[in-house]
């Protein structure tokens, strides 16, 4: 265990973790201090919490190869290895718990992020949409007519639950269920599709693709896991903003979102075991909270930041880089 934290892999894992924590704290405080409410600006700041842990250690080592030396460690602002080598009851090193945290994060990443993506990729290759439902198709086409830009394929799935999602890539498509078409008004349908179009449009940005790849690379990193999830939530709100800028109807999008609440119903028959049921309830609750927040934003009027955010951004980046340099 001790040898691992003196190896480059161990030092990378430990330092990228602690650099990520510090970056996330500074970014959060920076967003509050400068009262940054625009999701697009906030996303630029939050990207730092993902990018810094990836590059900080190799960058600092390149600048100063003696950064790992004893002299540097003793004079540093914070030496994480002191905590990792602390032994509980004189026997169990805290580093063991740190490695456990990394392992749990890896398992969460595989089960909650990679597995659904794989499932989604397989599902979208399997065409399960109805072609004979001309009435539904007509409603969707009408909604698309009022929206600018390139139109992707829209596929209607026969399903009794309301779902809406899009696939990106070279041939993007929007998928929606027949149940959703039946409950949405034409304005709500247009707002919902505009939101998905915004996702497709943004997925073409190389920066987001790179960030996703870096996130996959940092599969073990708990801070990157949390920050990436916040980024994804922020992405939903950015797409809400883009949809509203096209439709000029935030109320319609807010009403459409109400159809995506997950019912938390204890009376439903459960085949899941207790921990799985609890997990599902938690996931449904957090999904509903996000929907609530998005509806509140849309109905309360979308935020706009005044002035340039580049000065706070540059200052935040510099502070993160300087502090983390002295954190080993």
């Amino acid at each position, binding site marked *: 265990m001790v040898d691992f934290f003196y190896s480059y892999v161990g030092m990378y894992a430990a330092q990228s973790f602690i650099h990520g924590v510090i970056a996330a704290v500074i970014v959060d405080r920076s967003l509050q201090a400068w009262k940054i409410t625009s999701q697009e600006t906030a996303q630029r700041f939050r990207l730092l919490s993902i990018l810094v842990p990836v590059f900080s250690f190799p960058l600092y080592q390149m600048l100063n190869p003696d950064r790992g*030396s004893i002299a540097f460690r003793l004079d*540093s602002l914070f030496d994480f290895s002191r905590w990792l080598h602390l032994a509980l009851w004189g026997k169990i090193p805290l580093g063991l718990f740190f490695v456990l945290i990394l392992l749990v994060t890896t398992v969460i990443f595989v089960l909650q992020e990679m597995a659904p993506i794989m499932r989604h990729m397989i599902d979208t290759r399997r065409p399960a949409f109805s072609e004979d439902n001309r009435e539904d198709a007509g409603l969707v086409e009408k909604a698309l007519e009022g929206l600018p830009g390139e139109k992707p394929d829209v596929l209607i799935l026969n399903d009794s639950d309301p779902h809406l999602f899009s696939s990106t890539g070279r041939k993007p498509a929007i998928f929606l269920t027949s149940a959703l078409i039946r409950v949405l008004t034409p304005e709500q349908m247009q707002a919902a599709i505009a939101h998905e179009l915004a996702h497709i449009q943004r997925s073409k940005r190389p920066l987001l693709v790179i960030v996703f790849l870096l996130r996959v690379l940092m599969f073990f990193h708990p801070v990157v896991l949390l920050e990436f999830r916040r980024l994804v939530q922020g992405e939903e709100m950015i797409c809400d903003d883009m949809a509203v800028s096209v439709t000029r109807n935030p109320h319609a999008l807010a009403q459409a979102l109400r159809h995506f609440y997950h019912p938390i119903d204890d009376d439903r028959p459960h085949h899941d075991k207790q921990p799985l049921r609890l997990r599902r309830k938690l996931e449904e609750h957090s999904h509903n909270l996000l929907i609530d927040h998005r509806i509140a934003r849309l109905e309360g009027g979308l935020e706009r930041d005044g002035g340039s955010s580049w000065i706070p951004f540059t200052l935040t980046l510099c502070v993160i880089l300087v502090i983390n340099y002295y954190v080993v």
Partner: protein
Amino acid sequence: MQKRWLAIFSFAATIILLIVLLKIMNWVPLAVQQGTLRHYRSIDEVESKLHFSTIYVPSFFPQNFSWPPAEILAQEKPFPMVIMQFKDRDSKRIGLVIEQVYVKAKYHPDTDLKITRIQRESTVFIKHWEARLVIALCGEGNPCTQVSWGSGTCRVTVRTTASPRDLIRIARSMVAEQ
């Protein structure tokens, strides 16, 4: 304008608080666990505070190096280690380093006198211990020599800007006759 200054003040206050918090968190392990890596003023202090069975100190000491050591670092946890650095009287730079590291730790401390290029390696005997002698370049390309040997539970390394002959004499003076 006032809002901007308020934001800068609030952000600066957070950063100061974060730095103070990091400093405290850096100190906590030293307070909680005795025997972690720290500076010592003298070899006597190391002997009195830590439980080392042997601390390797040379009895032969070339005159161009200053005694006592310019820096003494020692720890018991996570593994026993003592590092002594001596300054060259003329250049005022570190000219002699003595490291004593727990043999199973596989740890090579980065000190102020670091080998950058090995030129020649050979085997020598430091009394009854088989040792590896390295002729190398250190730091900014200055010639240096190093000898290291396993001595029971620890690995002893002596690195110096002095000649190989002086290095061997320093090393031999550190090992007691069997």
